[in-house]
């Protein structure tokens, strides 16, 4: 969520029961602004929080002018002091997939592969590395996976310029009621995978400036994303639940 509109956005997402305490909200408002200044970000988004057993991680993303560039992610334990996270590598993601169970809440906690998967531990050992993985690496990999699977934006919110960079669309007024109920009006905000596989007939209908991302329609399993329309008096909010 956009840092400035955080309070309003939190009120809309509160249907699920998860939220932030007033203290955290206030702290975020302050520290995200400072973060933006320190790192010279153009925008700062609050990504969310991952609850561990002993503590929670609060994640923020900083954006440079090109929104499609790899994101710069930071985490914090108290919404005030932020630490940079390195970009995710495929190796990290593969290792983290084998870990199960909850996060501990301590970024320096080490998961011992020997207990979890002895074979993998051996291969790692032969490779000259220790068969442990730190919780920080697991955090990076998990965030990357979550973002890839459910980082969603509405169609038309971002435009691609002919030079290749991606910007917010200033003329975007939101989706109409009918459009908002369709899964095809939402896109994954990651490198497109399915776009090249479309037939020429489908591609002819696409507008290259707004339709440059994968739509949700073709996600497997079908209908995994549920579009729930909650009718709130004074407005309507669409909550996309991913099961």
């Amino acid at each position: 969520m956009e840092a400035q509109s955080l309070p309003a956005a939190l009120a809309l997402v509160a249907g699920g029961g998860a939220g932030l305490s007033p203290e955290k909200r206030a702290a975020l408002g302050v520290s995200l602004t400072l973060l933006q200044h320190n790192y010279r970000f153009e925008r700062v988004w609050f990504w969310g929080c991952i609850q561990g057993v002993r503590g929670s991680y609060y994640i923020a993303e900083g954006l440079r002018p090109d929104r499609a560039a790899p994101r710069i992610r930071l985490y914090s334990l108290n919404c005030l002091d932020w630490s940079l996270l390195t970009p995710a590598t495929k190796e990290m993601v593969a290792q983290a997939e084998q870990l199960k169970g909850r996060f501990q809440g301590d970024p320096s906690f080490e998961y011992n592969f020997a207990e979890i998967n002895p074979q993998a531990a051996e291969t790692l050992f032969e490779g000259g590395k220790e068969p442990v993985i730190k919780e920080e690496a697991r955090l990076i990999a998990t965030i990357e996976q979550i973002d890839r699977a459910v980082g969603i934006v509405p169609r038309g919110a971002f435009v691609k310029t002919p030079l290749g960079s991606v910007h917010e669309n200033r003329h975007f007024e939101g989706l109409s009621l009918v459009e908002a109920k369709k899964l095809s009006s939402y896109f994954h905000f990651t490198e497109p995978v399915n776009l090249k596989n479309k037939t020429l007939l489908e591609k002819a209908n696409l507008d290259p400036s707004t339709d440059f991302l994968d739509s949700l329609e073709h996600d497997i399993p079908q209908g995994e994303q549920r579009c729930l329309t909650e009718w709130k008096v004074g407005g309507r909010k669409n909550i996309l639940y991913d099961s």
Partner: protein
Amino acid sequence: MDQSPGLNPSQGADHTYAYERGHGPYQPHEPGYGLDQPDYSPYDDQIPDPKARMLAIQNAKAYLLKTSTTSGLNLYDHLANVLTKILDEQPTNTVDIIENISKDVKWARFQKKMDTLRDEYEIPPTYEAAEKCKALFIKENGEENEEIIEEEIGHSPLPNVMETAFYFEQAGVGLSKDESYYIFLALKNLTSVQPIQTCRFWGKILGLEMNYIIAEAQLREGEEEEEAGEEVTEEEVKGMDEVEEQDEEKEKEDEPPKSTYKPPPDIPKEENGTGANKYVYFVCNEPGKPWVKLPPVTPAQIVCARKIKKFFTGRLDAPVVSFPPFPGNEANYLRAQIARISAGTHVSPTGFYQFPEEEEEEEGGDTYEENPEFEPPAVAEMVDSLSTWAHHVKNILKQGRCVWINPQKLEEKNEEEEEDEEEEEEMDEQQAETGPPLLTLLSEDEGIKDIPAWTAQHSTNLIPQHSVAIIQSNRWPGAYAFASGRKFENIYFGWGHKYSPENYTPILPPPVQEEYPSGPAITEARDPTLEEELAFKAAQEALAAGEEEEEEEEEEGDD
């Protein structure tokens, strides 16, 4: 030099007189010096005479007013319209788009200005929701009002939802204030409609199509309706038995052998008001919609609910398609999950509740009462040690009930009623199941693998005087409880499932049952071939011959 504003538009079309007015005195060094004087203008030689100039203007204007033979327009009017439009709208870079503007003005002539159809007023989509919510805000009018007010002031079953929401907000848990208030009003409606003694906002369970808002209540004594449904089914069953017996007598000879399988007896559900059915639950999809009462839960449903994991759709009559097949629809599944969550996660500070002194029941004491001498421990203590919290809802045994019942005794009871002539099989004596007693401390809760069952935190580390102790369950993600002084509350926001580190895999179907015991008498074997039979016969004869010889020898020996 600026051209003076307010130039007559018709003059603008006439280039000849463009510079006649408006240019101020030229300085001696400027090229136009002296040209603005009459008789010194550069065009003086063309039309020197003023009268002729006026004539020329009129001629030009007449020419412009000439009506076109094809379209009936004239240039004068058209240019007037174009310039009026431009001056009204003041677009940017007008000179670049002047042709388009001219075209648009001509095109607009063909559009009818009057549209006889009026747009129908579009009902905003949030209209229905708003209507329902408005109904919440209407106070009942009439004479009843005064009586109700008097009663309520004395003892109100309505909980203070906003206060609870405030404390949970400190923890970062909860719904938006608006929604909490709607729920508050909806609960007020519930208490006025149903005969409720105590009521509590239990929580919100999310669903795929709609969500559930759940209220936990205790009905006033004597107000519970007996479920007529059960009596009807019992009578039906008895009627069916009689019919079956008659059929049996007629067809006894042709009947295939009856199976000796006796299904285990149905474990009866607990009485309303005890055990898992201690409270009655009402649900609605959204505040403003009518509350629906959930049926009491049976042990079979709880046992099955432990084995399946299904998301709720939001419709109470939706079927639950699963393996093992769930005995009931979504309303029953919801009730079973509510029972499990309540049993697993409803906690209170230790000592707040105590057993009444006159307890003569067995160990499975179901009742508790508030301890008037309870002194709340400090918030720091409540967070540090889990022994300051205790469960106040009875644990559900494996059987699906809170109080164990011996199925054997059930069977004997059933058999006496039905007077069957079948042989009684001896069942192994089942051991009585026991669970942790009421008011167990949280420190004795088992975790899952190496994750403790509960996580406790302060709501704020910066202002310890006003912080609230909050615990969240790791076994049932979404269950929270807070305690601050004498106040405490439990709540649930989530999908309604237990936490498991592995993904859910449904149980495999049981192995195929053996139809009959296989022994040598019925196992198939290859028929012996001709050679084998002959060989066998020969061997038999040899043996017989051998025996005869032995007999002869014995006989000879006897002699």
